[in-house]
Each structure stands twice: as structure tokens, then as C-alpha cells.
């Protein structure tokens, strides 16, 4: 008995030690996340991207240029990383200092997409198979030390642990005992008040960004040896886990982040040590063993968000002097005449019908494919219009809802021989229920936290839910694939690509009308009222929770309809191609850049996603204009990566023009027309807005 107990204790201790290296990785990222949040007030989802850039630079210098460790480290961590931070602050975040949390979050999502791609393009960097990134000490991966005689640590791991502890101590000291630390926090709290005290807020903010970016750089270089191939996606996925660790300290506590990161690593190691043994004797534990490990970070994050009241109250710092600014010009005051609205709608409809007619009569298979894909995607994007444009909530799990629709069609057709359209409707209802269920715990969270919770759900869906045979298909998908049939509607067989395109356009039109009606109906007004003032809305009997629940459900319903359309179009679910979490994050960027509150914004986002690459980057449009593909300059074709770089950086515009570039242009035209008619108004001539009023805007969109 004593032997058994001793053995269990030894296993417990060994698992504890084994959890420290991965835990350190999480801790480093979590520390960096907290550091950025404390020093800039930005919930920086681009932290992983910043870390990747330094890790890739270090790798390139070491492996491809053959540099020694010190110069490679200096270049990647001491020069490049702070420079990235300086640029981000100077070019982007300095101008967003008084913007709300949500616009900043969208900007960081855009940066998370754009930064690694930009680095890869500029540095001609590609993953190198088989070459494990080296650490910052010689023989870091091959020399081991076993301080307890239980489990040896590599030099790289010990360095990472040491850096994490030293960094936590130093940063905590910086904030607690130094003037610069205090000033950093002060600038986050109120840049105006700080400046009134003679402190140069811009300079302090720049230092803060350089510091956090430097930390991202060192974290990236330290954790890189854990990956046998460097890939930006690994860093983003890691960041999601790190947010779970950081949330242990409510995003404010550096020791909390350190403990959270190490705790996650240790908890996973303990689970992997003991669960298999217990499952041998208790078979009911097997499903838990199967699914627990990948789910742990997301469960922790979700659990903290939902169950820890403090984190819900952790609102972003607001500047007490924000009121000294003159109120931004409300472009919502500019109304377009009914005639203009009608004209633009007729013109839009004629354009769409015209394009459709040309594609149906003249288009080859490729064009029919691309346009159908754009239509299906536009349907999915309309779900973002509902939840973000109307509901004011950033949901990063629309891909999971869309996938739910797609897999429902696959499963119901495969198992029950159901028609594809009824199956799609059932799938949409399931997704709506899922959306409603998800909204229950997150509806009281602030905007940023909803985004994080939905991101956690997206990854949970990806790593756990999808593995369930009644969702992803299990063996069936392995042996038969995830084929989805085209539907038959009464006498019409939609098997041909062109007839399916017509069907898809009809579905999109129905959903678009639904969204327009939602916007102008009770739900739309309710959501607008809540966005304007939640307290005021409650005082007149509006239930924000119920309204958000409905918004989530409707949004999930629409996403699932779009997902099933996509699957029917491609005749396969193709989850990895169509719905994986990071791709869905990019959807939000696209829609946010172009117009998150309008139907036309969603449609044009989908068109951009589908056609920007072939038409612009591959030079097809230029070739058509020049009447000869051979005349297209040699710079074409341009790599598709630029789609992500351009639209990723385009997200910066969201903070300045939260209505989206397209709607902003429409408003600008309307402002000019109004000025022509009524004389100049009080606002700036371009009708631009600052990000500060993002959450307070209540005007009606025009599209």
C-alpha cells in the first residue's frame, strides 16, 4: 500500500515536472498578453503574430544565413521586435488610443492575419521541413539536467523557465516601483490627464509598445524549439491557450499569468498521466480521456469567463477626460433621400442580376464556381452582419456554426436519406439552438470577452466536437468522405452548377431580406437601443440578455444555412478548406473592413474573398482590360498571400470607420450631397469619424 502510494506520489511529481516546459510556453505568452494589456490597454490578438515574426527572423538568421546566436538574437529580438512595436504604435495604435475595445480588437485580429504573411513575403520565409528551430543557448535541445532525478530538462527549457520567472519579477517590479511603469499605466488610463501632468503620452506609449513587442520577440524565440516546423498558425493557436492562462490573473496580474500558464501545462500532464490508468479500470472515464486533454484550455478559459464575476467587471479603462473632446460628427444625422436609397437599391439589384445573367450565359465552369462560392459565403457573412453589425457582439465562432449546417446536411443525408434542403433547415435549427445555448453564459460579458469566449468555443468545436462521430462523421468520413448532394426542389434538379447558382442566389436574397427586416424590425431596434445604452434600454423593459440570445440564434441559423449552401455547392463539407477557426476569424476582418452593418458589406466581403485573388492579384482583370492576357505585366501573378496582408491591414480602417469602407464612402457622398443642398454642416468635410464613438453609434445604415 505504501509502495503504491509512494509510486503515485512519484508519478504525480514527475507529471508536475513534465508539465512545466509546455506550461512555461503558455506562461510566456500569457505574461506577454498581460504586459500588452497593461501597457497599452489593447487586447492584443496579434501578440502571437509578433512572436512569430521574431522567431522566424531568428530562424532565418541562424539556419539560412548561418549567423551565430548573439547577432541573430540581437537582430530578431532587440532590433526587429521593438521596431515592430514602435511601428504598430506610431502608425496604428497611437491614433486609436481613445477608441473603444472592440475596434482595437478587430484591428489586432487584422494584424494577426497580416503580420506573419507580410514577414513571410518580405523575407521570403517558408517553413523548412525537418529543421527544428534552435534555441538561444548552444546545444539547448540536446544537453539535459535532472535536478530531482525524476525528469530531465533541456537547456532550452531551463532558459525559458528562467526567463519567464525573471520577466515576471522584473515586469512586476517595473509596474510597482518605477516611474516609467506607473506612467505606462497612466497613459492607458488617461492619456489626456497624463499629458496635462507634463508627461509625453506618445513617447511613453511608444516605449510601452516596444517593451511588449520585445517581450513577444523573446517569447517567440524561446518557444520556437518546441515546434519542429515554424508556422504562424501554431503561434495563434498557442495564444488562445495563453489567453486562458492570462485570464487566471484577470489579464491584470503578472504572477497570475505565470501561475495560470504553468498550471495549465501541469494540469494537462497530470491528466495524461492518470486518466489512462483510471480509464483502464473505469470504462466510463474513457470518453473523458478521449476528449479532455484538447478541451482543457478552452474549458478553463470558458469557465473563468463565465464563472468568475471579477472578469466580467474588468471593463476597459476609460479616460475620465474623454469628455473634453468635442463630440464626433454623427454621420447618422445625414439621411439619404428615399429616392437615392431606392435608386441605389435598384442599381444594385440590376448590377447583381446583370452579373448573374452574364455568368449564367457566358461564364465557364470556373466563373460559375467562383460566383456560387461568393454567394454561399455572402450568406455566411450575413450572419456576421446580424451578430456584429446589429448585435454589437464580436463572434469569432461563425465558422463553427456554418460547419454545423454543413455537417448536418452530410449526416442527415447519409444516415437518414433526408433531402438536402430539409437537412439544411434542420442543421440551421440545430445551429440556432447551439448559438442560443452559447449566448446564455456569454451574454453578460463585455464585447471583448464575448469575442474571446466565442474564439474559445470555435477551437473547442474544432478539437473536440468535430471528433464526435455524429458530428464529423468518424469512420464514415474516413471510408466514404463527407460528400454532400445537390438538392432537388420539386421538378427542378439542382445538380447542374448553373441551376445551383440560381438556387443559391435565391437563398441569399431571402436571407438578405430577412436581415434587412430584422434591422428595421423590433429586434433591430432593440439591439440598437441596447448598443446605445443598455441601462436605458432595460429601463424601458428591454431584456438585453433575451435580445442577445435571439441575435446569437438568428446569426447561427444564417451561418448554418450558408455553411450548408457551401457544402452543397462543393458537394463536400471540406471542413479544413471552408470552416476552420482562423479562417472564420479572417471573415470578420473582411466584413468589418468593408461594411459590417449592411447587406451590401457582407456581399462585397464575400466577393472580395473569392474574386480579389484571381481578378486583381492574378491579373485576370488587367488582362481583360488590355484585351490580351499576354500583355499583363510580368509582376503578375502576385501571390495570394497579399489578400491577407491587404485586408488584414485594412482592418485598421475599422477603428476609423466602424461602418466599413463602403458604407463610409456612401455616407461621404451623402454628406457632400447634403452640403450641396443645404450648405456646409458643422462636421469635417469628409464625414470621417474617430473610433471613440464606435460603441455609441446608433444611426441607421443605408445599405
Amino acid at each position, binding site marked *: 500500500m505504501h509502495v503504491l502510494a509512494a509510486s503515485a506520489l512519484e*508519478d504525480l511529481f*514527475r*507529471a508536475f515536472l*513534465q*508539465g512545466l*516546459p*509546455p506550461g512555461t510556453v503558455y506562461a510566456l505568452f500569457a505574461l506577454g498578453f498581460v504586459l500588452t494589456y497593461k501597457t497599452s490597454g489593447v487586447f492584443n490578438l496579434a501578440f502571437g503574430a509578433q512572436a512569430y515574426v521574431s522567431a522566424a527572423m531568428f530562424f532565418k538568421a541562424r539556419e539560412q544565413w548561418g549567423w551565430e546566436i548573439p547577432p541573430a538574437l540581437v537582430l530578431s529580438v532587440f532590433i526587429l521586435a521593438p521596431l515592430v512595436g514602435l511601428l504598430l504604435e506610431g502608425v496604428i495604435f497611437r491614433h486609436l488610443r481613445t477608441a473603444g475595445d472592440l475596434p482595437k480588437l478587430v484591428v489586432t485580429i487584422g494584424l*494577426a*492575419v497580416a503580420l*506573419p504573411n507580410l514577414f*513571410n513575403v518580405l523575407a521570403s520565409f*517558408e*517553413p*523548412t*521541413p*525537418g529543421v*527544428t528551430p534552435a534555441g538561444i543557448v548552444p546545444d539547448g*535541445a540536446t544537453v539535459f539536467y535532472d535536478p530531482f532525478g525524476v525528469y530531465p530538462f533541456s537547456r532550452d527549457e531551463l532558459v525559458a523557465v528562467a526567463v519567464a520567472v525573471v520577466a515576471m519579477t522584473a515586469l512586476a517590479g517595473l509596474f510597482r516601483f518605477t516611474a516609467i511603469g506607473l506612467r505606462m499605466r497612466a497613459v492607458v488610463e488617461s492619456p489626456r490627464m497624463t499629458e496635462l501632468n507634463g508627461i509625453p503620452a506618445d513617447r511613453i506609449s511608444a516605449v510601452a509598445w516596444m517593451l511588449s513587442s520585445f517581450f513577444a520577440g523573446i517569447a517567440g524565440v524561446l518557444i520556437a524549439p*518546441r*515546434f*519542429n*516546423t515554424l*508556422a*504562424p*498558425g*501554431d503561434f*495563434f*493557436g498557442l495564444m488562445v491557450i495563453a489567453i486562458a492562462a492570462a485570464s487566471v490573473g484577470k489579464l491584470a496580474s503578472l504572477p497570475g499569468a505565470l501561475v495560470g500558464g504553468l498550471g495549465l501545462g501541469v494540469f494537462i*500532464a497530470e491528466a*495524461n*498521466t492518470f486518466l*489512462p490508468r483510471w480509464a483502464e479500470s473505469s470504462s466510463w472515464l474513457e470518453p473523458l480521456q*478521449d*476528449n479532455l*486533454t*484538447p478541451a482543457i484550455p478552452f474549458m478553463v478559459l470558458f469557465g473563468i469567463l463565465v464563472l468568475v464575476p471579477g472578469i466580467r467587471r474588468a471593463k476597459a479603462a476609460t479616460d475620465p477626460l474623454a469628455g473634453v473632446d468635442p463630440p464626433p460628427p454623427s454621420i447618422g444625422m445625414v439621411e439619404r433621400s428615399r429616392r437615392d436609397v431606392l435608386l441605389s437599391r435598384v442599381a444594385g439589384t440590376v448590377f447583381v442580376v446583370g452579373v448573374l445573367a452574364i455568368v449564367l450565359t457566358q461564364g*465557364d*465552369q*470556373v466563373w460559375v*464556381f467562383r460566383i456560387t462560392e461568393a454567394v454561399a459565403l455572402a450568406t455566411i457573412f450575413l450572419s456576421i452582419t446580424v451578430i456584429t453589425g446589429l448585435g454589437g457582439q464580436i463572434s469569432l465562432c461563425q465558422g463553427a456554426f456554418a460547419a454545423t449546417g454543413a455537417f448536418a446536411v452530410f449526416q442527415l443525408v447519409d444516415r437518414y436519406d433526408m433531402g438536402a434542403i430539409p437537412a439544411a433547415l434542420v442543421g440551421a435549427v440545430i445551429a440556432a439552438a447551439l448559438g442560443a445555448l452559447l449566448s446564455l453564459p456569454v451574454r453578460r460579458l463585455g464585447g471583448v470577452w464575448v469575442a474571446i469566449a466565442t474564439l474559445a468555443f470555435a*477551437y473547442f468545436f*474544432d*478539437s473536440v466536437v*468535430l471528433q464526435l462521430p455524429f458530428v464529423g462523421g468518424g*469512420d464514415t*468520413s*474516413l*471510408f466514404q*468522405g463527407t460528400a454532400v448532394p445537390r438538392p432537388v426542389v420539386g421538378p427542378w434538379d439542382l445538380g447542374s452548377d448553373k441551376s445551383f447558382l440560381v438556387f443559391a442566389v435565391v437563398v441569399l436574397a431571402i436571407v438578405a431580406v430577412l436581415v434587412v427586416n430584422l434591422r428595421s424590425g423590433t429586434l433591430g431596434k432593440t439591439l440598437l437601443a441596447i448598443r446605445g445604452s443598455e441601462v436605458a434600454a432595460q429601463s424601458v423593459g428591454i431584456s438585453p440578455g433575451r435580445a442577445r440570445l435571439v441575435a446569437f440564434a438568428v446569426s447561427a441559423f444564417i451561418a448554418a444555412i450558408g455553411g450548408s449552401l457551401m457544402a452543397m455547392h462543393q458537394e463536400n463539407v*471540406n*471542413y*479544413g478548406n471552408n470552416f*476552420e477557426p*482562423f*479562417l472564420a476569424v*479572417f471573415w470578420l476582418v473582411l466584413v468589418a473592413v468593408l461594411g459590417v452593418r449592411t447587406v451590401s458589406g457582407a456581399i462585397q466581403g464575400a466577393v472580395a*474573398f473569392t474574386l480579389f485573388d484571381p481578378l486583381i492579384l492574378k491579373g485576370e482583370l488587367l488582362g481583360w482590360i488590355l484585351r490580351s492576357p499576354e500583355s499583363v505585366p510580368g509582376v503578375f501573378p502576385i501571390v*495570394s498571400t497579399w*489578400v*491577407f496582408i491587404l485586408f488584414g491591414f485594412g482592418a485598421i480602417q475599422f477603428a476609423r470607420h466602424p461602418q466599413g469602407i463602403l458604407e463610409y464612402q456612401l455616407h461621404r457622398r451623402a454628406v457632400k450631397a447634403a452640403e450641396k443642398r443645404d450648405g456646409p454642416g458643422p462636421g469635417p468635410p469628409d464625414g470621417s469619424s474617430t473610433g471613440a464613438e464606435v460603441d455609441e453609434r446608433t444611426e441607421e445604415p443605408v445599405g
Partner: protein
Amino acid sequence: MQLNHTDGFSRRLALSVLVAIGLVVASCGNSGDDTADSDENPSTTETGGSDATGDEEFVSIEGVPGVTDDEIRYAGFGTFAESNPLGTCVMQCMAEGVEAYFAYRNSEGGVHGRELVLDDPVNDELTKNQEKALEIVSAGEHFGAFSATQVASGWQDITGAGMPLYVWNIHPVETQDEAVFGNAPTICIECTQRNAVWAGQQIGAENFAVFGYGVSENSKLSAQTSRAAIEQHADETGQEVVVFDDNLDFGLPNGIAPQVSAMVENDVDMVLSSIDLNGQKTLAQEMERQGLGDVPIFHPNTYNQDFVAEAGDLFVGDFVTVGFLPFEAEAEGTGQAAFREWMGELGHEISEVAMVGWIVADAAYQGLVAAGPDFDQQKVIDATNQITDFTADGLVPPIDWTTGHTPPTPDDRITNGSERTCTAMVRVNESAEFEIYGGTPEKPWVCFANDDLSVLEPEFVSFG
């Protein structure tokens, strides 16, 4: 649309590819011919060549896409290294093999009086396979196509347009299409294999650890069939699976330390892992750390000399299965000699996927020859599907294309498979180089009879 940010995305893609490679190699490395044995060379497919290039009457063909009086043009589309999350060379390497093969055949006069031409391959950017396939179909300028891709979403569009398609067979569902010809026939995913059991027996291994990824049905099932194979022969071999985990996180972000500790506690002396290259390396590193560096791993997909060499002595002593005649085998008398010569002639680097390109290019050529001078796409597809013993001149175990698109079943591996299941096997030596294991350079194929699945005694054969 390509998203270089990977994660769930790359996980699933990388995994489906790499594990599928393993499955192809491990489970069907491949089926032996009914009559072939070590002394026979059943290369009937070679005989058509001279007829097709020299003495036959030239037939002018109208209305067949990609065919002129001078050439037969093929398209290539698939995943390029820069779009591959793992960075490995896929489509470009396959194209190099195809180009080398075409150059070789063209140097002998081509086929039916025409040269074989492969257009510059197109990058499907990981997620645009279907769009690229439709571009090829819409252009209508190609007779057939070659594809090595991570996601085969466009293959059905190529074959739907009546074109023959020659592929790197890592997609077991898609190769069931009658017009898709891979470097191996459609595989039986759930069939147990005896090669690992036998290899373990040779080195006296009794306690096995078996690993697979939970996120992939491919990997999971492969791990389960590995365990089943050990258990199936346990009475004879005394082997036992003492550590089993088919729910590893892809990429092993949390490491694999607890599982290796369990291996230490259970005296594991051999590992069967159905995971990707990077995962194999992480596993080997952790085993090294915990003092199990000498315990061999049985790899389904690590036949990559550069990768193994880069890892130093991590993989020394490990077993690796190979789906084609290994480069360490005797090349003389097989297609490998010509492969080496023409790859060198064109300045291409020899690689696993280039060999795949060469093999499927031979399938394209043999199909044309078999279809005769008055050929079209359907005739070539039909003629290829009549070939019963395709070996690419001794590079792969004979493929019977009359049944090659239907997977065998665990209980009947002969009807849609063959009398024998054959796999080439190499082992990493002290210099971190591969050397033939089990067989000899002259007879490198390790074949097990399929009429009695309990038999663990292999036959070593050559198909050259």
C-alpha cells in the same frame, strides 16, 4: 483560399496527408501479384512501348483535348512547398518526376508519334484544389492531369470532365474513382498489417507502445489496427501492447512526456506510431530524454533522407516502410535506373514524391500505349483499367487496375487486392542512413501471403 496562418487548418491538412501516407505505405505497401515471385518479372506493361513509338501507323486525332499531331499535353495541379504547412515539396517534386519520365519517353520517340508534355504545374494553395481543377477543365487544353495535393477537392471535377488523373495516392476515398490512378491502388484502411509485428519479432520486441492522433480518423484507426495486429499474433509472438494512446493532440503541443514515462514503466521495446514527421521527431526527442533512445520506432512515413539526417542520431535503429522500390535497393533491371538517369539529366533532385511522379507518369504512358494509336481520354482510362500487373518497371508491387479502385476488406484481401501484401522496409543505420531491412538490395520487398493471415513468415521478392 490559402491561409498561411494554419492551426486547426494545417493540423487537419497536414495530418490527413501524412497519416494517409503512412496508411498507404503501411497498410498496402502494396499488393503483390497472384503469380509474381522473386524470379519473375511480370512487366507486361513494358512491351507496348516500342510498338507505340516506332512501327505503328500514325493516326491523326481530332477533337481530343490536349492532343495535336505533335504532342499530348497534361496539366499539373497540387500543393506547392510554399503553401504546405510542413514545407515539404509535394507538387513541384511530383512534376519533376513526371518531367523526367516524359523526357525519357520522348527521347525514345514519345508515344503514338507524339511527345508527352507537362505544362507548368499550378499551385492549389492548399485550399483551392477544386478551383484549379475547374480552371484546367474549362481551358480544355489538356488530355489528362497530374496531382499531388493535401486536399483533393477538385479531383472529381477532372474525372467528371472525362480526363484521366494520375495522383499521389494519399486520399483513399478519391482514388476509388475509375479514372484516378495513383502510385498505389485504393487501400484497405482497416486491414491489420504484419510487417511491424514481424519486424518486432526479428529484434525480439515484446512490449509495444502504439500512438495515433485523436483529431484524425486516419491516424486513430491506423493506431487501432496496429494494436489489433499485435494482439492477433500475440500467441505466436508473445507481443503485447502495453501503452496505447490514439488521442494525442496534433503536433504534440503539450509534449508527449507522460506517455513516454508510461513506456519507461512498462519496459516498452518498440513503438508503432501513426503520426506525422514532426510528431515522430518530438516523440523521438522525448524518448531520448527519458532514456529510451535505443527503442526503435516503426515509422510509416519517414522515408526522407534529409529529414532523418537532420535529426542526427535520433532515428538510428528505427524502421521505415516504403511504398516503392527503395533508393537503397538494386536499381539495375528496374525503372529506378532510368529514373536516376533522367532526373540527373534534367537537374532535378531525387525525392520520394518525384519517384511517385515517375511511377504515375508511367501509368499514363502505359495507358496510352494500351489504348492504341486511335486513342481518346475514355479509351485510355478503359485501357489502363484493363492492366492487371502494373509495376512501373519493377518500382511498385504489381497493381491490378481491374480491381485497383475498390478497397480490399479485412476478411478478403485477395478479391480486390492480391495474393500477397508487400512492403519495402528500410532501417536507419548508425550513420543515420537508410539500409534495406528484411530483404536484400536485390529482393527488398517483404511480402505476406493473404490466403492465411496468421502466417508471419514473409517472402522476400523483387518485381524488377
